[in-house]
């Protein structure tokens, strides 16, 4: 496998693809019409499940299976499209919405039919102003055509769709925090169970899926699940948008068949690190994924292979780091992000992210001893699995992996920073800059 395989993005070169007439001319809304008029809800569900489509928002859970958890009954059910995309390194949903908003709306219609939802929301991060406007315009077009509203496509099915803009909080991408935010609360994750499929938005059964997951559904309905399952390998079916960023020559989004070697993505598609630089490590699935190193370059890019290597495919946002980057400032930047974004509801995450930042600052400022590395590693272990949601884990896992892969560099940094600090103290002391003796003499 080499190069891109453009299915989701097949028509991206078409001018004005974001407009209804262009999207329809290329066959758009055919699948949603088929699902609404010619298929039963079970048939839609079966096709989604048979395709093997897995969630593209992080956890990689089977989409069809999740939709099948929605209980029967007359209560109102909901579909929420997760367009919060705030994970450092992730920028695929942005492009999917901006270039082809109707594809997402069609995916929402199909997802809603599968979940028997009559109300759908697209929760888009507030910073995506342009994309929200484009979606709004596309939704208006879809209402005008009767593809949304009451009796969609002339069927008995109703579907209201609202584009809801967040106001800046990474945690709102976590599904239960997203629901709270959508209900007009602070976006704090909920204790699970109950899971959203049973008690989600307004306490009703709710299906939550990522933008890319939903965008994949129209083609599955159009070409059939076998067509989709034929792409990729094993349990990683279909194509995947990969966002490559960091120290590469050609950052960008690439649509690849799952199972393509990692090397082909980083070096083939993105051009590898700049001239004269070498790969140090990479995050295969956004900043929450433990880092991998050169030895992992020949692995196939699949959910399974990334998990086996101790990381995860996640959102398939590949952040590449070259050998010009020292590890401690990188870790500090990463931990700082999660500290800022921790909602503060549960202790291990709130305190763990805060203390990790403090300890990394100590290392950087020369106040740490090699023992601090052990303590820091232990803090990470105590976060993992002990939080309400996985935001804490999302810091603990990559930080833990950095300590594991680059322990020598951490130790060198501790020693070098300590020596530099001591030299500075001696210099200041000799120059008489320290007011009182003992105030801050060399350790």
């Amino acid at each position, binding site marked *: 496998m080499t190069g891109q395989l453009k299915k989701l993005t097949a028509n991206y070169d078409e001018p004005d693809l974001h407009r209804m007439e262009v999207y329809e001319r290329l066959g758009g809304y055919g699948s949603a019409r088929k699902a609404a008029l010619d298929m039963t809800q079970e048939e839609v569900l079966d096709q989604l499940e048979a395709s093997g489509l897995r969630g593209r928002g992080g956890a990689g859970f089977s989409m069809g299976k999740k939709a099948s958890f929605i209980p029967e009954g007359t209560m109102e059910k909901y579909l929420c499209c997760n367009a919060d995309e705030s994970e450092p*390194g992730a920028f695929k949903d942005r492009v999917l919405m901006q270039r082809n908003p109707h594809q997402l709306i069609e995916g929402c219609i199909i997802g809603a039919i599968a979940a028997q939802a009559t109300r759908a929301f697209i929760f888009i991060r507030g910073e995506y102003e342009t994309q929200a406007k484009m979606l709004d315009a596309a939704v208006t077009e879809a209402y005008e055509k009767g593809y949304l509203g009451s009796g969609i496509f002339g069927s008995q099915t109703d579907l209201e769709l609202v584009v809801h803009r967040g*106001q800046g909080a990474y945690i709102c991408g976590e599904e239960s925090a997203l629901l709270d935010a959508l209900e*007009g609360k602070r976006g704090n994750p909920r204790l699970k169970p109950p899971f959203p499929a049973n008690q989600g938005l307004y306490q009703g059964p709710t299906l939550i899926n990522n933008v890319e997951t939903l965008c994949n559904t129209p083609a599955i309905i159009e070409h059939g699940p076998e067509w989709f399952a034929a792409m990729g390998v094993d349990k990683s079916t279909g194509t995947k948008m990969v966002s490559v960023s960091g120290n590469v020559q050609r950052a960008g989004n690439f649509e690849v068949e799952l199972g393509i070697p990692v090397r082909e993505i980083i070096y083939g598609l993105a051009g590898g690190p700049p001239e004269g630089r070498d790969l140090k490590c990479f995050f295969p699935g956004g900043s929450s994924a433990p880092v991998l190193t050169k030895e992992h370059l020949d692995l196939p890019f699949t959910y399974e292979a990334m998990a086996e290597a101790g990381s995860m495919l996640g959102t398939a946002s590949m952040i590449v780091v070259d050998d010009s980057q020292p590890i401690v400032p990188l870790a500090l930047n990463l931990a700082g992000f999660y500290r800022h974004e921790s909602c503060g509801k549960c202790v291990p995450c709130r305190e763990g992210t805060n203390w990790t930042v403090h300890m990394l600052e100590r290392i950087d400022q020369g106040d740490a001893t090699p023992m601090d590395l052990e303590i820091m590693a232990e803090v990470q272990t105590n976060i993992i699995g002990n939080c309400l949601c996985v935001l804490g884990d999302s810091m603990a896992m990559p930080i833990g992996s950095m300590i594991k892969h680059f322990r020598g560099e951490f130790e060198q940094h501790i020693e070098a920073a300590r020596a530099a600090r001591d030299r500075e103290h001696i210099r200041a002391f000799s120059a008489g800059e320290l007011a009182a003796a003992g105030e801050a003499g060399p350790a």
Partner: protein
Amino acid sequence: MRDRRTMPLGWDEAVDLERDPAVVPDPAEVEVPEALRASITAAMQRYPDRHSAVLPALAAAQKVHGWCSPEALRQVAAVMQVTPAYLSSLASYYDMLRTEPIGSRYVYVCTSVACHVRDARAVYEAIAQEARDQELEDVEVRNFECLGACDMAPMASVDGRYVGPLSEDDAHELVAAVKENREVLPGRGLGDEGFRLPWEDKA
């Protein structure tokens, strides 16, 4: 400037225990600009539960007032019939809602990890320095978390328009353009006609 990362807003202000909590305002007593009222009312009608409209409502009020000022909160509270305290609990939670009159426009410079490895810190500092040198007013200039545009790293969002990739050399022109209300770095904004990253083939 207060370090917004370490201490929550108001941590050093004493609480007035004598004062009664603000109640849901009487709509008759609060004057609300017509356009704002209309947009909040429309938002409330979009949802099965009116509380869901609170973020769109606060964002709309912030557009009018420049920040979530006590008056802005009172107006939203009056239209939505909720307490101002509920609104301020939200305004202080979400990054894009301002709880201080820092500026009615914004320049967010991303310094998260993918931008970090491309020297975003230096770009941010250059922009912040220029903003001070050029005495930029009524604009919130701050470093921000990943804005979902790591392909154009390092980058910034100027009132929602994404520009990049940036270097320290762009700082002067960027700030000058914001100050003079010109388009910032024409042709280098995501969504600009024919926008391409420097390494992408020209169409």
